[in-house]
């Protein structure tokens, strides 16, 4: 299956949508960090002026404490987007002081339940949502608890940082182990991940395709774990026929990463490639730049170049 034409057309559309500031918004002209990171990754092999301008724009947005905001004009307290920025800077520039500062910020950022008082409250009084607060990861923004997507992105970024030699400290290993245990703890009872927890008010929650895909990408090395196996199975079974390019792209990225460990994943990949090509055939109609960029990355992953894959 030739994915190259769709990839190239999508990349050209993304290039044409770059803002004057050098970044990308989701669908509007307000530059936002998340879509900018994904577009940089989608254009990383082009070595073009677009990527250079975008990297400069991203670097200029870094907060004094090493973190990144969510969008241009946001408060300087930093948030979860620091992880995708670190990922995209590492994938495009080999050495950068800014990357190190971003990694340091991620190592010290933590969900609110990391504090013993909140941990105690969440495990005794405030326990309608079932989870082990001793197992924490990363939050969307400061002052809140850990959630699946920011934890998964940070785990992927930190493991890439270790692989690429940016940081191999004991602290990094500890945070990766703790974050991994958090994801395994928050899994839905039948496999897969919702946004935060698997059970609330006594009811099992339904998994989300994108959260499940990201959690699986972050859990490289846990393939033997039964929770991993049933979650990958859930994703393979539920991704087919998804009407959304965004979920299809993230799901494909996860399935492509594990094609060697699951024959079913491998078998399903051809069908998902067809789905993705169908969903992005009219790339100009995919208004969300983040979604279009992730589609490009998923199509590349089918061909064996998966930017989110942790090598372990």
């Amino acid at each position, binding site marked *: 299956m030739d994915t190259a034409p769709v990839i190239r057309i999508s990349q050209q559309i993304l290039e044409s949508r770059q803002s004057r500031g050098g970044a990308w918004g989701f669908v509007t002209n307000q530059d936002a960090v998340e879509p900018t990171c994904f577009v940089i990754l989608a254009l990383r092999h082009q070595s073009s002026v677009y990527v250079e301008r975008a990297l400069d724009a991203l670097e200029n947005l870094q907060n004094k404490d090493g973190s990144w905001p*969510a969008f241009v004009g946001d408060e300087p307290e930093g948030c979860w987007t620091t992880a995708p920025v670190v990922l995209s800077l590492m994938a495009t520039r080999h050495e950068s002081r800014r990357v190190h500062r971003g990694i340091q910020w991620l190592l010290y950022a933590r969900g609110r339940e990391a504090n013993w008082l909140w941990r105690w409250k969440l495990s005794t009084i405030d326990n309608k949502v079932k989870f082990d607060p001793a197992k924490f990861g990363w939050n969307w923004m400061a002052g809140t608890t850990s959630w699946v997507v*920011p934890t998964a992105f940070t785990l992927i970024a930190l493991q890439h940082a270790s692989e690429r030699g940016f940081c191999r400290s004991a602290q990094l290993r500890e945070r990766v182990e703790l974050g991994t245990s958090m994801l395994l703890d928050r899994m839905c009872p039948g496999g897969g991940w*919702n946004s935060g927890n698997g059970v609330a008010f006594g*009811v099992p929650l339904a998994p989300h*395709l994108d959260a499940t895909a990201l959690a699986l990408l972050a859990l490289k090395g846990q393939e033997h774990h039964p929770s991993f196996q049933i979650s990958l199975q859930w994703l393979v079974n539920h991704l087919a026929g998804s009407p959304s390019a965004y979920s299809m792209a993230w799901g494909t990225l996860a399935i492509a990463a594990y094609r060697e460990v699951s024959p079913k994943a491998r078998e399903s990949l051809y069908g998902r490639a067809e789905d993705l090509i169908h969903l992005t055939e009219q790339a100009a109609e995919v208004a969300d730049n983040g979604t279009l960029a992730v589609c490009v990355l998923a199509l590349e992953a089918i061909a064996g170049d998966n930017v989110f894959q942790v090598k372990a």
Partner: protein
Amino acid sequence: MERDRRRLVISAVGLTIGGAATARLLPEEMLLRDRRPRRSRVAIISAEQYSERLDEVLLSGLREFHLNLRGKSVLLKPNLVEYIADVDVNTKPVLVGAAAEAFLKLGAKSVVVGEGPGHQRDTYLVLAESGLADQLHSQKISFVDLNRDELVKVPTRATYTGLEHLWLPRTVLETDFVVSMPKIKTHHWAGVTLSMKNMFGVVPGTKYGWPKNVLHWKGIHRSILDICATAPLHFVIADGVVAMEGNGPLHGSHRHLGKIVLADDPVAADFICAHLMGLDPSRIWHLDRAAHFLGNGSSERIELVAEGLPQRTVPFDVLPEFAHLQMRA
């Protein structure tokens, strides 16, 4: 002379400290401008089922309000949370479509639908799975993902959360006429989710995350008040044809109420909806507080322009911690 000056300084400092302490002890709404209209209008309309007739029913109900919409832009904000097969979780697409049609017939320049789901990052997936994408496509109505719209920093107009400002989507701020279209449901954290709680969906995930967890930590009731005091909200169309009781907003049971509630005041709308649910609105913290400054809760200031409240209501099932909300005969 020097002693007088010292006395003056001491008095000024004392007054400042005393004033600040008193202000802290007063209920927040006493410090807020009273924005309640003199009278609010609410229409309870019977609709036994979701059908093509909703267009006519809604249009005739809206005509009771004599709205001046000529040349104005309208934003419909339904409750689009998540898709769960065979469970009525979201505002019914056919009702959203009927509302769009009705506002256009009443002279609106444009109608768009916008929502920013709380947990599900893939907005389009919920839009498609819920059937709303097809409904809007068939009517050529645009959809705006409020989680990813352009954001504008707006000073909060209430003080319940301590947040000095909120980032809100430009689409919400620049639309002439914003309509909250909740599904009438119980809610496991807030007791009920009606037109005011529905406005959580205008708070953008891009800034506040999925879910908008910072608002939970600030207190759901407090956040509802700050959002509704700050974001524009002009009208309510509440979907109570099939409502939800028990462990709402996702895992409760269907409750056939057979009603649509229209109102020109969200507080009045939610008071009436709570009555229809057999729940006491004055025991729901954010409603009780809102009725002191934001809208009307008192029956003397609410005019029912269509049907009256039913004589007898079997209260909605609620989780045990909300049993005190149930009105008993």
